[in-house]
């Protein structure tokens, strides 16, 4: 057990690509957590997908032993937090386990929207912030301008920001000194009843469910009977340890310490991020504040391209769920797509990650339907229904009103692209709240309906700003909207997987966009195919795919038969990747691509 005065718990707040993972690598290397031979890039990002996308999905902690310039050795617990808005709650629990944070800002790019959200959260939680300017070795670095920007935008003193290059290793020791001298030591009472924060958990093939904890008060011992205060479940602690980042087993963790336990917990779903762990016999009086159950905000249907893969999809989902209990899934049937699952996610990135992991780690080919938010439908009889799937929309005559979720979005964008960004927000029914400048960057705050954001807002934002805009949001609340269900009819038959709930004013342009897209995506058939968008019985947009005009092989003799037959067989194989709807074959990519709008 380390005494409180020699512990520092901190996390790193940074925008994607600003160098958080590289800095973490350097800190580990400098303090000797790993030898050079053991180092690989982004040590803390274990998942392939984390490394590839350069994002952190699961929280990780690492205990560093650092001998400071004052001659004393400190235990530093670095917490690597997820960096994306979808995981805002996970980030908040990570921050709650720290006393301070390093604010890492790219010295050439400056403060970005994501940084802002996380740093405000850290400030709100009374964390001490140490600004760090990274990439000062780059020719484009403007440390003074960025310091000024930190002061203007965030409102913290940046005069003694530490200038580093995580890539070259410049000034890494100064960062460690800053952690020791500028961040406060944790407080906590060793004699008090156990109170530990559940930061994160995951499934390990050898250890079972591993729970990451920060002890606030009391002691967490091997063999101790513990209780989860929110779930009420009790477990016997099997192992206690910490990461250096290698696993090291120990007997106990005391106040201020961060580490992990295993306790024969069967599923990750049994553990809840933010829960308080206490002693079963001598429980704490009250739980730590801030606990919230995971909340899914975006839903979509996932269907196997090959219907025969349905069972594989089911087992893949259940295996992924072992490790990530924050998404939900339940069986769904679609007339167009057959059997699949309706899944709920923390946000769009979370959706993409799960979909990608299913495809990559489980070798599945999937069709994802239009992402949907949760609508609150107030029925005329007073009942309130939460609608996750446009297909389940009740009859219009029985609906009194529909409410949709709104978000508060922060966009940071260079001046040159401001106009385009404002237009995008405006076109998506946004309401401007604030527009401020910091240097040549504008910060815009908008209220936006979430359903306008879930489709392709982020893609569009990146495209109109050539990648320079950054974006963050949090859910604000529900507001009544003029919403209707728009159906898409292909050859006169509604395709349920393409129906969606839209704002009435936006319906026509969306409907036209979808019809035009589908016209290009669906191959020509032997007959002409009308494509229509409709609200109720009223057609609001229409396109027609003309029939094939000429498709015949001019020469076909004795030597051509085998080739022709194989060509036909190949076509037939290709048809398996299409969904037959009535007499029309719809390629799988149409279901996704139809939703993306080229322009607003």
């Amino acid at each position, binding site marked *: 057990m380390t005494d409180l005065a020699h512990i520092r718990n901190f996390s790193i707040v940074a925008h994607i690509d600003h160098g958080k993972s590289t800095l973490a690598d350097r800190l580990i290397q400098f303090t000797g957590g790993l030898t050079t031979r053991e180092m690989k890039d982004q040590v803390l990002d274990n998942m392939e997908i984390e490394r590839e996308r350069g994002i952190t999905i699961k929280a990780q902690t690492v205990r560093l032993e650092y001998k400071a310039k004052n001659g004393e050795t400190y235990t530093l617990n670095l917490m690597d937090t997820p960096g994306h808005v979808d995981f805002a709650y996970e980030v908040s629990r990570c921050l709650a386990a720290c006393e301070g944070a390093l604010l890492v800002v790219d010295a050439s790019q400056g403060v970005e929207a994501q940084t802002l959200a996380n740093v405000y959260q850290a400030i709100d939680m009374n964390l001490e912030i140490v600004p760090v300017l990274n990439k000062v070795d780059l020719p484009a670095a403007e440390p003074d301008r960025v310091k000024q920007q930190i002061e203007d935008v965030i409102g913290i003193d940046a005069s003694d920001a530490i200038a580093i290059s995580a890539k070259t290793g410049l000034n890494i020791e100064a960062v460690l000194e800053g952690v020791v001298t500028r961040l406060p030591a944790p407080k906590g009472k060793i004699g008090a009843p156990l109170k530990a924060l559940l930061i994160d958990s995951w499934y390990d093939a050898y250890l079972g469910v591993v729970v990451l904890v920060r002890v606030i008060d009391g002691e967490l011992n091997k063999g101790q009977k513990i209780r989860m205060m929110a779930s009420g479940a009790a477990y016997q602690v099997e192992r206690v340890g910490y990461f250096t980042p290698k696993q090291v087993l120990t007997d106990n963790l005391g106040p201020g310490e961060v580490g992990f336990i295993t306790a024969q917990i069967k599923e990750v779903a049994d553990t809840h991020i933010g829960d308080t762990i206490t002693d079963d016999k001598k429980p704490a009086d009250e739980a730590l504040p801030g606990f919230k159950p995971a909340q899914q905000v975006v839903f979509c249907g996932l269907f196997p391209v090959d219907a025969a893969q349905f069972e594989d999809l089911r087992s893949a989902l259940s295996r992924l769920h072992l490790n990530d209990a924050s998404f939900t899934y339940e069986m769904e049937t679609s007339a167009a797509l057959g059997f699949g699952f309706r899944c709920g996610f923390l946000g769009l990135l979370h959706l993409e990650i799960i979909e990608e992991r299913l495809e990559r780690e489980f070798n599945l080919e999937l069709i994802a339907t239009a992402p949907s938010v949760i609508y609150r439908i107030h029925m005329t009889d007073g009942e309130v229904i939460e609608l996750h799937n446009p297909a389940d929309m009740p009859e219009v005559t029985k609906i009194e009103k529909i409410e949709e979720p709104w978000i508060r979005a922060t966009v940071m964008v260079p001046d040159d692209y401001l106009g385009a960004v404002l237009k995008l927000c405006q076109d998506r029914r946004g309401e401007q709240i604030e527009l401020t400048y910091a240097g040549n960057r504008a910060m815009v705050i908008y209220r936006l309906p979430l359903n306008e954001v879930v489709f392709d807002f982020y893609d569009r934002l990146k495209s109109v700003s050539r990648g320079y805009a950054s974006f963050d949001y949090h859910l604000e609340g529900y507001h009544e909207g003029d919403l209707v269900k728009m159906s898409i009819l292909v050859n006169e038959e509604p395709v349920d997987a393409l129906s969606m709930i839209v704002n009435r004013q936006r319906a026509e342009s969306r409907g036209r966009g979808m019809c035009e897209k589908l016209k290009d995506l669906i191959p020509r058939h032997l007959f002409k195919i009308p494509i229509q968008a409709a609200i109720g019985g009223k057609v609001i947009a229409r396109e027609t795919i003309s029939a*094939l005009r000429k*498709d015949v092989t001019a020469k076909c003799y004795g030597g051509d038969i*085998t080739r022709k037959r194989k060509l036909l067989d190949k076509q037939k194989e290709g048809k398996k990747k299409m969904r037959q709807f009535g007499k029309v074959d719809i390629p799988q990519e149409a279901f996704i691509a139809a939703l993306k709008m080229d322009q607003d």
Partner: protein
Amino acid sequence: MTGFGLYIHWPFCAAKCPYCDFNSHVRPVIDETGWCDAIRTEMAHVAALQGDARPVVETIFFGGGTPSLTHGVSIAKILEQARRLWPWANDVEITLEANPASADASRFADYRAAGINRISLGIQALNDADLKFLGRLHNLAEAKAALALAQKTFDRVSLDLIYARPNQSVAAWKNELAEALAFDTSHLSLYQLTIEEKTRFATLYREGKFAIPDEDLAAALYEATQEITAAAGLPAYEVSNHARPGEEARHNLLYWRYGAYAGFGPGAHGRLELGGKRFASACERVPERWRERVARDGHGFVEWNEIAPADAAREHLLMNLRLVEGLDLGDYEKRWGTAPSPARIADLTSSGLVAFDGTRLRVTPAGMLVLNAVIAALID
């Protein structure tokens, strides 16, 4: 069954045409006798496979490549081998594909003496500019002379044209076709120009060096072709083939009716019936390698497989529906134990693409234009 034919592939050309993706090769010197002997060896191999059950030969076809680069004596030697190995019908149709260049035409009489009784002339276009574009070595005057000589020498002459060429209007094609009909051959093969992979045209086309008619124009050209030939008494009997009734190419009908045939020479394919089973053969494409194989093994087959009935059924359907006469569905089902689904047939009938009279399933003229899709729908 539907008869038995022999196909002999002569793989050499004086020059490679830019549109052609057939198995053809240009060689400075050709040891004609050696190649003929190799073909005769391969013929003996197939006859041996057939054992005592050798079918009666009804048609023979010399294709290529350019078989009119050979001399009459080579043709005679190959036909002599065919006579020795198989029983012959009384009226064996023996066709040779010829280039209308003067050197080739000078051998017509020898071919006739060797036994050729039908000639197919690859004229391709009736103006010098287009002949040049198509990479042909002959000009129009030569072509006309060769045609006249062919018509004097042989009872049955067919000529080939390629249409839907770059910048060809319907009116221009109508004129050209009328000119072609005026030659009064009993058979015409009229192919729309298509860009085949791995040809010089494919590269030029990709580079945007020329354009070919779009679908609508191509369809209009096709329809005009059907109309004009029918009015002239040479209606289409297959997608690209037109003949006076009774003058159809019997050898090619064998392919389209999915009969049995043996293929000899580099790249040749065969479909043989042995012991109630159907086999596919395919020969090595590269001439020299084919010859090495023949010298070593007695044949140049690189593929020799039994065709599963389900595969054979699909092949039969895709070939037979090219014919205007269509397919006897009862016979088809008896032969393969499968048939296109009645629902699909009904579907395509209501769209006017096929017609079924209770016995024969025919593709309508409208259906012929989109035959590939019709076949795909029926096979699905």
